[in-house]
């Protein structure tokens, strides 16, 4: 495992790396084919750029159109170190905030590069016509996100992801129009083809006809998003899944820090067992909303009747310098703590208030409506309550995974030729991601990093031809067929949805906001039992050779069942707390995460060892040459 971090000073690493990269001459690029799986921000931006450079690109997505990718749901904004507000921002500060926000569990070199290219992303998107919010005079405006004391978040109302994706999608479709790129919509990647130790192709299933197909290439890019949906209830789109990443893992790619999950503090609380997803209320709302609970336990008065001096604005009290914009992991844990104390609100007692009354009084309803109108409307539709009049009720929910496939500085997996971009990799956010940094990372990877590093790989690697007639393609296709047959063997039973829901409950209880030794061991046992029950009893009516979403779901849930166990094993092994990973055994007296740098300052990269065998852990030690490892303090 070589992270291939360029030598020399931090500031010059990326420049030197680009200079030292091998190049492919423009006329030769059309000789190389690159498969891109995923058309979210990371995939669409990479595919469009690679095609523009002249490579032959094939894009795959299980959606009917690239622009349905989960990135479209991103609400609040995208960070960039432009320092438009003149409030002291810089590349170095964005780098530092991200390293600290991630609780010192990310690579310095990757994070610095991310901060360095961030400003170009905004220019690129503006050039595409992305309608970022502007000041009256026409300049781009910013708002603040958690974990930062500067305003560096660019946004398009509460629909930033949608607008950015439309930009990337336009760039993608332009290349499609020019016939530089093939687009395979409604095709799901079900396995990775490895030839002579290198990633050389994929096996896909056409979701309309059920047809299985193999595809060959010189490099494979996975930009398949995160696996937070493993918890069943999460803010992710319902189809988000781990299959592409998990299949790559089972073909030899390392999986890094799988237990690092982000639980977002501001989501609409659960109302019942029927619920299929949790809706995020963007972190940007904490610019103006104030979080509070009653001071007294079990105070059931309506919020308007609780006088101000009987309210506990606990984030402002505990973290005065960041206040309501404390980072996500910290704000989520604080919410859990006050609810555990019996001070939660709403009928379940599992909620806190996010109150806009003061902001509306000072700024007027109209201003608040311009900033957050769509979010307020969404809240009202779901809860039937008007947040302009009564405070929102919110509770933490699973939102994002920092864990993912291991990649080196070039965003290449340990499997040569396999590149992993966006939320699917583990690279930049350590143990906790700061708000508005996922969009930044996805677009940095796709527009500004992978197009250089993939060129370097193609230019500098001897690649033997890998025709579809190679036995590896037939072999992998056979494995996929056997797996579908195994999933379809039961003649009656239970929908995969029910297994998924039960898996989510186990994970949320034992591998969610707080984890401990006994709970994790229990979860591992429960997951194994559930997995056995799944294979015994999962039933898929309908046919394999036709559209069949029960079959699609069952395949994804089967992979979740295996990944869930690895998440618990990883969480069990990391006995320290860091970022979103809170081990109850390792807390400060105030209940904050207590890191143990002497033992755990590493990336845990897991290697598949065969069916039924425990995965093997490799450690990538994290070296901090520029920042000092410090206690993460937001007080």
């Amino acid at each position: 495992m070589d992270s291939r971090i360029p030598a020399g000073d931090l500031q010059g690493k990326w420049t030197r790396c680009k200079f030292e990269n091998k190049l492919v001459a423009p006329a030769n690029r059309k000789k190389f084919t690159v498969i891109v799986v995923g058309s979210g921000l990371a995939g669409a931006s990479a595919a469009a750029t690679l095609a523009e450079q002249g490579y032959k690109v094939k894009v795959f997505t299980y959606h009917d159109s690239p622009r349905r990718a989960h990135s479209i749901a991103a609400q609040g904004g995208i960070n960039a170190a432009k320092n438009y507000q003149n409030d002291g921002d810089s590349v170095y500060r964005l780098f530092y905030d991200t390293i600290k926000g991630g609780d010192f569990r990310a690579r310095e070199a990757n994070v610095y590069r991310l901060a360095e290219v961030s400003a170009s992303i905004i220019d690129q998107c503006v050039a595409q016509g992305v309608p970022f919010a502007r000041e009256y005079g026409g300049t781009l405006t910013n708002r603040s996100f958690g974990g930062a004391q500067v305003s560096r978040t660019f946004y398009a109302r509460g629909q930033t992801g949608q607008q950015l994706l439309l930009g990337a999608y336009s760039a993608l479709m332009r290349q499609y129009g020019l016939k530089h790129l093939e687009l395979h919509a409604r095709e799901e990647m079900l396995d990775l083809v490895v030839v002579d130790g290198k990633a050389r192709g994929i096996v896909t299933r056409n979701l309309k006809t059920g047809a299985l197909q193999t595809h060959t290439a010189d490099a494979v890019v996975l930009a398949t998003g995160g696996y937070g949906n493993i918890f069943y209830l999460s803010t992710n789109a319902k189809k988000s899944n781990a299959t592409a990443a998990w299949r790559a893992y089972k073909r030899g790619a390392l999986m890094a820090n799988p237990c690092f999950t982000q639980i977002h503090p501001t989501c609409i609380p659960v109302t019942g067992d029927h619920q299929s997803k949790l809706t995020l209320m963007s972190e940007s709302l904490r610019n103006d909303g104030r979080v509070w609970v009653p001071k007294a336990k079990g105070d059931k008065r309506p919020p308007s009747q609780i006088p101000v001096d009987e309210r506990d604005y606990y984030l402002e009290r505990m973290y005065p310098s960041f206040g309501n914009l404390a980072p996500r992991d910290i704000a989520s844990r604080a919410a859990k703590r006050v609810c555990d104390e019996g001070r939660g609100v709403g009928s379940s007692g599992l909620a806190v208030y996010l109150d806009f009354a003061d902001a509306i009084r000072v700024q007027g309803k109209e201003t608040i409506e311009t900033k957050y109108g769509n979010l307020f409307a969404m809240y009202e539709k779901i809860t039937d309550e008007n947040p302009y009049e009564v405070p929102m009720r919110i509770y933490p929910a699973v939102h994002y995974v920092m864990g993912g496939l291991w990649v080196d500085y070039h965003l290449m997996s340990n499997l040569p030729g396999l590149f992993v971009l966006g939320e699917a990799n583990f690279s930049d956010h350590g143990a906790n991601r700061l708000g508005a940094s996922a969009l930044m990372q996805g677009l940095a990877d796709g527009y500004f990093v992978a197009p250089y590093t993939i060129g370097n790989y193609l230019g500098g690697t001897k690649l033997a031809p890998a025709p579809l007639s190679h036995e590896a393609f037939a072999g992998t296709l056979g494995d996929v067929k056997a797996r579908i047959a195994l999933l379809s063997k039961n003649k009656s039973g239970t929908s995969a949805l029910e297994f998924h829901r039960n898996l989510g409950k186990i994970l949320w209880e034992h591998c969610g906001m707080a984890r401990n030794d006994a709970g994790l061991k229990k979860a591992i046992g429960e997951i194994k039992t559930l997995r056995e029950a799944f294979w015994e009893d999962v039933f898929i009516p309908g046919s394999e050779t036709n559209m069949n979403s029960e079959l699609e779901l069952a395949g994804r849930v089967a992979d979740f069942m295996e990944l869930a166990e690895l998440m618990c094993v990883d969480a069990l092994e990391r006995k320290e707390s860091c970022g979103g990973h809170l081990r109850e055994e390792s807390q400060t007296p105030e209940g904050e995460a207590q890191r143990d740098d002497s033992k755990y300052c590493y990336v845990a990269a897991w290697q598949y060892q065969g069916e039924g065998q425990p995965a093997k852990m490799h450690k990538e030690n994290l070296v901090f040459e520029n920042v000092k490892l410090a206690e993460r303090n937001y007080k």
Partner: protein
Amino acid sequence: MKFTLKIWRQETPQSSGKFVSYPIDSITGDMSFLEMLDMLNVELVRKGEPAVEFEHDCREGICGSCSLTINGCPHGPDTGTATCQLHMRRFKDGETLYIEPWRARAFPVIKDLV
């Protein structure tokens, strides 16, 4: 709440479809329309019957995947609201709901409601 669902079932793009009636019970007002269909599908699978195919993903009204023509209106009775954001509290207990795919020549039916 209880409803009678009349759902368009069509096996393939070539085959002809028809409405099939499904009674459904224990629906709460907080459920979204798609959560009601989830519940129906779980019951159908348990009875060994093919689940109803419908399109969805984000379930927060932004991706544009969900569709459905409900009682003749695309995305149901509310304007500016995608089906995934429609909640059962909008309907009266005991109502009959006609659920069919959006019919347009440019978007032929693939299966059931897709």
